[in-house]
């Protein structure tokens, strides 16, 4: 038995505002105050054109300054050169600068004395508004006491140690023996900063080879002038430094800063500890799964051969599963968590995991893993576009890309490559976003293009990839005469190809490709789930698989429209099934969903009005509500769960759809025999009659009404006649006036044989039970359900606003009004059975009893508004000159084949076999020293060489400013504040 989930249908494309938040790595508004803020948003948010300047060392950049309390964020116009996100609480002083006329500039001073100058280049009133918002937001932060928290928080950041005591932290850190100095630093500082297992168990890789000291020195310099942790400003140099690989000791902190998880940790102090405390000792499926994998997570790392590392890993994974029980735990998260715990404290790792699972790898680890499947599809499509020859070859030999690439994405390459290299990819991934995964993946395929064209099967593909990953540390050009070229590793070449040749893969492309394939993926997941659900049924009854599939479709549709209550978990386990089998979670639907479900299948479980107004004829369908339907629900709930599973529905329908006359009569009888004693009480006879009336409510003519009336007459007369003592010998009726013995309305009254007799006495009822009842259940293919509207771009927005149900209703009402005016409006209720289309009166069988119709009996309100024709109303006519197009269902597919093919640059290169290596910057550099000889002592000259590698990745950065603008910006650096 499986669960059925409609969760994928609830997907919504992020709004523009959400995209901005995502771009700046801001925490989504959750963890408590969601509801309030979503209501009163926008009031305090604003963005404004601005020019950012920072000291003389950096160029000024034009961009947009956003205030999104409690954060201030900036992004340069090209969205990649310069950006920052800083909490307002780190800003200590804001001054308006005294500058040339017409220039409106602010100086922002952070808590550690860094001066950021922003020149607001929008119109004056806009700038004034922005300033007042900024002032208010700062005041709020002050009142919340956030300002005070900053000092304590930054103590947990290693960068502060680097800055404040460079002699201790950086100088002592030799290229070779970082651990020795670590001991000293730790002792003298009392280790207040957060760090990972690496501090105790060593970091992977050789610190000398990794040039740790040079990197630390470069970072120290950068962080001194550009802020750090909460206040880090990301200039091009920052990205470059990330691309050469973060130094081990700073890595954890930079990861949380670049990914934005630091803001979560900052704004939720103590949350992690509390979460663990509150859920202490709690076990569930997730914690069981976690337990199985703890010893399988980077087992080769020393830290995970000790209890310390294992229990850290356990706590972080558990805490995450407590916070997000819906996701819980997915294999591969253990690898991610184990990897980041080498560099981060538990709390840091916890929040980074949240950012990874929630924002950076959306849906990757969800129960359906839809994000993983989607991105695999996207990756495949990118391969098809940029490496068509490889793609075609894979098609020919039937090799599936995902067998290799799925773990790449799912474990951020950590499971595929040697750790030192994988972590450098993680560095870039956290700095530059999810596109990195795709860029690296494409580069891997491209570099191996020639051999890939030789492979014949999945196995060969995997072996090739494994060999390649094993060679990442080798020289890419072992034969080269140039020592510098020899020094280039296969891994460096990989990054080079990734970021240079596949720089065309942008975040926008990824997003639009995801939009393009989302429907396909959802569809395939759903149909996979459907096949599984049908296959896993205990019994199909007399249905074919296809029919069961149709029932599943109806169920699924009903669940989409009326979602079952979310907490379907704790089913009262009074009735433990089987011998101690653990009950697997199984989707069950409640009464409301059942009504919806039944209305898809049974003609009488819905009210269908045929509306004609001269313009259109449409059928309006409303789910019917009646006790009869509720009765059916409980009748089918054989396990007394108060809810029905797919199996229950199949079995229930099986019990009625294949019946012959006698079986149907019995079925109907049993349905109304609540206590199952084989007798209907008087009350139940009345209820049963009401059920008839409900089913027949829209039949044309009086035939059915008459039949029900006769039924009641006969039922009571027979019932009275046959009352115990069962004098039910031969004579059907001694029509004697023997007054019926008084019998309470809830006493056993009518048994099955009698009921059968009464039914068979009537032609209409007989034919109802013979065929009509079974046929009133109809299984037919449902039209493909629309997927959630992807409101991409203006067109999407427009469409989604036109095609809403609301507007369809408006349109319908509108045409109805017109119809009424011109006298063509007509509403007909569609009959559920529709046997008699004309008003004819079938005669009753020769009645054994007096055929008097006891109208008095009709306790039931016999409102059979069989066909009501509304008279044309004389409403003031509306002028009809707007041409309204009927809202069709087809939503525009995100048109992007065009926009994407605009970058065929790489198509030419994709003959991967002939890959021409772009010359490395490093190749041209002066060849002053043979790098192979390890003669590295950390001079300043050599520090710069660390950067050589990355110069190759350099992209042009555009400050977006003219020279004149730059002059103004420079002036501001020296401007005096206004009072």
């Amino acid at each position, binding site marked *: 038995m499986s669960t059925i989930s409609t969760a994928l249908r609830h997907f919504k494309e992020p709004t523009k505002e959400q995209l901005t938040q995502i771009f700046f790595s801001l925490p989504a508004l959750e963890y408590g105050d969601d509801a309030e803020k979503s209501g009163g948003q926008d009031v305090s948010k604003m963005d404004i054109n601005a020019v950012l300047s920072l000291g003389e060392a950096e160029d000024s950049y034009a961009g947009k300054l956003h205030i999104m309390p409690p954060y201030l964020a900036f992004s340069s116009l090209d969205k990649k050169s310069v950006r920052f996100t800083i909490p307002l609480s780190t800003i200590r002083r804001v001054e308006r600068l005294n500058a040339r006329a017409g220039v409106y500039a602010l100086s922002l001073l952070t808590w550690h004395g860094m001066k950021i100058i922003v020149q607001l280049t929008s119109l004056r009133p806009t700038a004034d508004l922005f300033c007042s918002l900024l002032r208010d937001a700062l005041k709020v932060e002050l009142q919340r006491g956030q300002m005070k928290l900053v000092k304590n928080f930054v103590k947990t950041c290693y960068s502060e140690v680097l800055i404040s005591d460079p002699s201790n932290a950086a100088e002592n850190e030799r290229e070779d023996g970082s651990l020795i100095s670590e001991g000293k630093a730790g002792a003298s500082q009392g280790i207040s900063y957060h760090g990972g297992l690496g501090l105790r168990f060593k970091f992977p890789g050789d610190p000398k080879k990794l040039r740790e000291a040079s990197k630390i020195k470069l970072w120290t310099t950068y962080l001194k002038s550009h802020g750090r942790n909460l206040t880090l400003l990301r200039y091009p140099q920052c990205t470059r430094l990330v691309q050469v690989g973060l130094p081990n000791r700073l890595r954890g902190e930079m990861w949380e800063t670049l990914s934005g998880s630091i803001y979560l940790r900052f704004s939720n102090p103590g949350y992690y500890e509390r979460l663990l405390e509150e859920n202490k000792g709690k076990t569930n499926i997730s914690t069981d*799964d976690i337990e199985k994998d703890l010893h399988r997570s980077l087992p080769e790392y020393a830290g995970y051969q000790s209890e310390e590392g294992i229990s850290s890993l356990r706590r972080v994974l558990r805490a995450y599963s407590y916070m997000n029980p819906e996701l819980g735990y997915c*294999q591969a998260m253990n690898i991610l968590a184990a990897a980041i715990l080498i560099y981060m404290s538990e709390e840091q790792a916890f929040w980074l995991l949240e950012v990874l699972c929630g924002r950076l790898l959306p849906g990757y680890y969800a129960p359906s893993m839809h994000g993983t499947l989607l991105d695999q599809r996207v990756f495949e499509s990118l391969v098809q576009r940029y490496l068509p020859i490889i793609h075609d070859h894979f098609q020919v030999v039937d090799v599936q890309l995902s067998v290799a690439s799925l773990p790449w994405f799912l474990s951020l390459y950590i499971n595929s490559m040697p750790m030192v290299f994988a972590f450098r990819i993680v560095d870039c991934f956290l700095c530059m976003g999810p596109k990195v995964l795709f860029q690296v993946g494409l580069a891997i395929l491209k570099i191996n293009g020639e051999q890939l064209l030789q492979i014949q099967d999945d196995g060969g593909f995997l072996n090739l990839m494994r060999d390649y990953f094993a060679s990442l540390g080798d020289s890419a050009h072992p034969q080269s005469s140039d020592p510098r070229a020899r020094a280039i590793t296969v891994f460096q070449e990989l990054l080079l190809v990734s970021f240079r040749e596949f720089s065309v893969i942008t975040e926008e492309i990824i997003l639009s490709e995801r939009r393009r394939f989302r429907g396909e993926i959802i569809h395939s997941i759903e149909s996979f789930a459907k096949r599984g659900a049908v296959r896993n049924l205990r019994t199909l009854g007399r249905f074919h698989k296809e029919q069961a599939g149709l029932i599943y479709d109806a169920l699924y549709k009903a669940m989409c429209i009326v979602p079952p209550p979310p907490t379907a978990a704790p089913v009262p386990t009074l009735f433990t099934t089987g011998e101690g089998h653990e009950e697997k979670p199984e989707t069950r639907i409640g009464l409301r969903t059942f009504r919806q479900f039944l209305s898809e299948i049974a003609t009488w479980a819905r009210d269908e009005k045929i509306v004609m107004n001269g313009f259109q004829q449409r059928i309006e369908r409303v789910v019917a509500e009646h006790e009869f339907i509720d009765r059916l629900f409980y009748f089918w709930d054989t396990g007394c769960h108060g809810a029905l599973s797919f199996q229950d529905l199949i079995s229930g329908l099986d019990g009625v759809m294949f019946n012959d006359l006698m079986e149907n009569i019995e079925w109907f009888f049993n349905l109304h025999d609540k206590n199952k004693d084989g007798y209907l009480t008087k009350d139940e006879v009345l209820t049963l009659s009401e059920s008839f009336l409900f089913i027949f409510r829209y039949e044309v003519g009086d035939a059915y009404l008459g039949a029900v009336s006769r039924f009641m007459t006969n039922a009571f007369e027979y019932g009275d006649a046959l009352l115990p003592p069962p004098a039910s010998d031969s004579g059907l009726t001694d029509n004697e006036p023997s007054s019926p013995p008084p019998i309470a309305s809830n006493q056993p009254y009518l048994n099955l044989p009698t009921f059968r007799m009464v039914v068979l006495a009537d032609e209409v009822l007989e034919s109802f039970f013979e065929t009509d009842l079974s046929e009133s259940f109809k299984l037919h293919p449902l039209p493909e359900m629309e997927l959630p509207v992807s409101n991409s771009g203006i067109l999407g927005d427009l469409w989604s606003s036109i095609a809403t149900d609301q507007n369809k209703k408006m349109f319908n009402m509108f045409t109805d009004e017109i119809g009424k005016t011109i006298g063509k409006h007509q509403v007909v209720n569609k009959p559920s059975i529709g046997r008699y289309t004309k008003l004819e009166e079938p005669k009753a069988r020769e009645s054994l009893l007096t055929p008097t119709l006891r109208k008095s009996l009709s306790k039931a309100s016999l409102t059979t508004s069989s066909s009501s024709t509304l008279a044309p109303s004389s409403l003031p006519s509306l002028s009809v000159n707007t041409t309204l197009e009927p809202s069709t269902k087809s939503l525009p597919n995100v048109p992007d084949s065009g926009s994407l093919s605009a970058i065929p640059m790489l198509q030419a290169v994709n003959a991967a076999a002939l890959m021409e290596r772009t010359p490395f910057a490093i190749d041209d550099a002066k060849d002053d020293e043979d790098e192979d000889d390890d003669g590295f002592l950390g001079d300043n000259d050599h520090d710069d060489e660390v950067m050589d590698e990355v110069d190759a990745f350099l992209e042009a950065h555009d400050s977006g400013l003219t020279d004149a603008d730059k002059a103004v910006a420079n002036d501001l650096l020296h401007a005096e504040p206004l009072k």
Partner: protein
Amino acid sequence: MADGASGSADKSVQVKLVLLGEAAVGKSSVVLRFVSNEFQPNKEPTIGAAFLTQKCRLEDRILRYEIWDTAGQERFHSLAPMYYRNAQAAVVVYDVTKASSLEKAKSWVKELQRQANPNIVIALAGNKVDLVQSSASSLSAASPPDSEDEADDATATPGETPGATGGEPESLRQVPREEAQAYATEAGLLFFETSAKTGEGIVDIFTEIAKKIPIEHILAATRGNTGRSGGGASRAEGTRQSGVNLEEDAVKGKDACNC
């Protein structure tokens, strides 16, 4: 990778085999026992699927098993078709000490029979049988394949409690052998009770699968593809005899390709 040139010597037949089953029933351990992966005492976690190969000899044929060891966690289920498509054989594993794992196994069998290659040979393996045997009997039944290679614990799924064999071992058993056997017969499966820990029954599975696989059929189907990457070193073609040989080969891991 030892012997990287994938075998395409005259009589080598490639057989794609997939392992399926609930999480923690010991799929990976079964494979590791068979493949005897001596280079990796700590196995890498199964993300999606792990891929291993092993060669064996059956009569005068060399079979090259390409083994896809899938992740057992329920949410990876939807990825499984990627791995079992085109598979010629499948080993569906359950845990004899866990009744629900047989139910899951049955559902895998159903899925394979409906969705996979119609000629697929399916074997049902009730693993962890060592937990329900007294140690004496398990010793006699076992044919430990690679005695010197690795500690037994290395292949045990964490959570497996080998120590529990004492006391009344049969009480741990939740799936009677007869019940599983009856099901396997009815569904047309090969059936074994195995212990990755002691090695009992492991080689037998692969031997019996090898016997049952329509080798000629596969050969005919793949004939067109053979001859690629032809570097396969000439294999010692000893004159040994049928099933035993396969066992011995596997035992010694002589041709084992631990990639």
